[in-house]
């Protein structure tokens, strides 16, 4: 099939960006969206032009590297699908496709469609873990975990840290990402000791990084490639309030 692409090109964070139009010719409908871009890029390089820069690594929907907004929807808007897993069979001959980077102040553009998501790492560094010294763990079966909680924990733990939730949220809020980690650890007995500390530290870092606040649009859940539920945001809101209350009462 043949398509027209309107792609955001921007040399680096400081330079101004603009849309460029490219033709994508003879694309197989079995190809993935990124493979389509590969084909376009091979043509560009052959012509001596710089390729469209975009991020990707695993190309199987698990590393969370790929990231672009396609026709207004993060990852292209297919249910539970990263853009590397989005296939061209969902497009039609002659389609005009607009491709933009994640847009959020805490995600400055590195180049073209590549953005800097290290703010996510700093949110995790603030408290998204269980502090346990290597070698000091008790036997793995010493603490039983009810299957239901293990499943709820796993549902949240699937977050791939792609940032689509921020990209899709009109407030550029990272609540879904953050709540996924807080939910993952919060449903496990191992995560209880640091539950309050974690919520306080992560949310405060989120705010310092400049993400927006949540107004419960649920758009994040709709585009999340791992279909993380906004119920985790609700749970985090509760955890955060309780943690503050405990802190105010000196109950730590």
């Amino acid at each position, binding site marked *: 099939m043949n398509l027209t692409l*309107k792609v*955001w090109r921007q040399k680096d964070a400081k330079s101004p960006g603009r*849309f460029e139009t490219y033709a994508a010719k003879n694309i197989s409908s079995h190809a993935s969206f990124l493979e389509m871009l590969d084909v376009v890029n091979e043509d560009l390089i052959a012509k001596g032009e710089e390729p469209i820069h975009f991020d990707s690594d695993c190309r199987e929907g698990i590393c969370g590297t790929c990231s672009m*907004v396609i*026709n*207004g*929807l993060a990852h292209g*808007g297919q249910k539970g699908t990263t853009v590397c897993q989005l296939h061209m069979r969902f497009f039609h001959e002659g389609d005009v496709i*607009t491709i*933009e980077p994640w*847009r*959020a*102040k*805490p995600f400055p553009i590195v180049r073209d469609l590549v953005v800097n998501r290290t703010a996510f790492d*700093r949110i995790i*560094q*603030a408290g998204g873990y269980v502090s346990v010294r290597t070698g000091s763990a008790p036997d793995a079966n010493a603490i039983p975990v009810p299957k239901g909680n293990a499943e709820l924990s796993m549902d949240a733990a699937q977050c791939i840290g792609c940032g689509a939730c921020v990209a899709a949220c*009109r*407030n*550029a*809020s990272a609540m879904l990402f953050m709540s996924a980690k807080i939910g993952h650890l919060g449903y496990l007995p191992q995560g209880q000791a640091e539950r309050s500390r974690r919520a306080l*530290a992560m*949310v*405060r*870092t*989120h*705010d*310092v*990084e*400049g*993400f*927006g*606040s*949540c*107004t*419960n*649009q*649920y*758009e994040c*859940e*709709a*585009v999340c490639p791992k279909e993380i*539920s*906004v*119920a985790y*945001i*609700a*749970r*985090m*809101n*509760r*955890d*955060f*309030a309780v943690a*503050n209350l405990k*802190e*105010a009462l000196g109950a730590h």
Partner: protein
Amino acid sequence: MSTAAATAAVRKPSALGAFYASTIGKKWIVALSGLVLVGFVIGHLVGNLQIFLPPAYINAYAANLKALGPLLWAIRLGLFVFFVLHVVNTIQLRQRSAEARPERYAVERKKRATKASLTMIVSGLILLAFIIFHLLHFTLTAIPTANVHVMEPFTGGERHDVYKMVVGGFQNPAVSIFYLISMGLLCLHLSHGFQSVFQTLGLRTAKLGPLLNGVSIALGWFLFLGNAAIVLAILFRFVK
């Protein structure tokens, strides 16, 4: 920002101050105050629906409220505080979020967000204008309309004919239309806002979600239809 700088900035003087300054803290305040305001508008509507009864009812209701004296003032003050908190925090959050997304997308599409959820600040701000107008209109009676007709002036202890005032007020089509639009926006605001409170307060689960959405929309319509019924009944002279 470096990790060290981030940690330094993360440390805030007092726990409650930090809560108030945080995105989620502000959200809580918006939700709690929103809930109080919802309670008020429901009560207010129920009271106002007495307009369909003989005038004595609503006038007695107003008089009874007045009779609360200092308690009334306490309630008014409370309402006012929640109202200010609601407005101030929503505006602050909106500002913050606008800063977080300095550049907009060329193509905007949404899958789940609704007209109502995306326009909370617009519906809210118009509601703010409405409420100012409304207070001038009925509480301070500072809006001169052709039909304003208060039986007796506000002299302490005098009978205050709310019934006449309201009926007089809505006989003016311009005023009525403004009220109707505002009631529409209130409906919109709450059709998203009510279920949103549960999410913010951490009471919404994936299972409860659809039910809450339904209740929220129903509440919006109930308030719209109830309020609009009053305005329309007067405008079209069913209630005179």
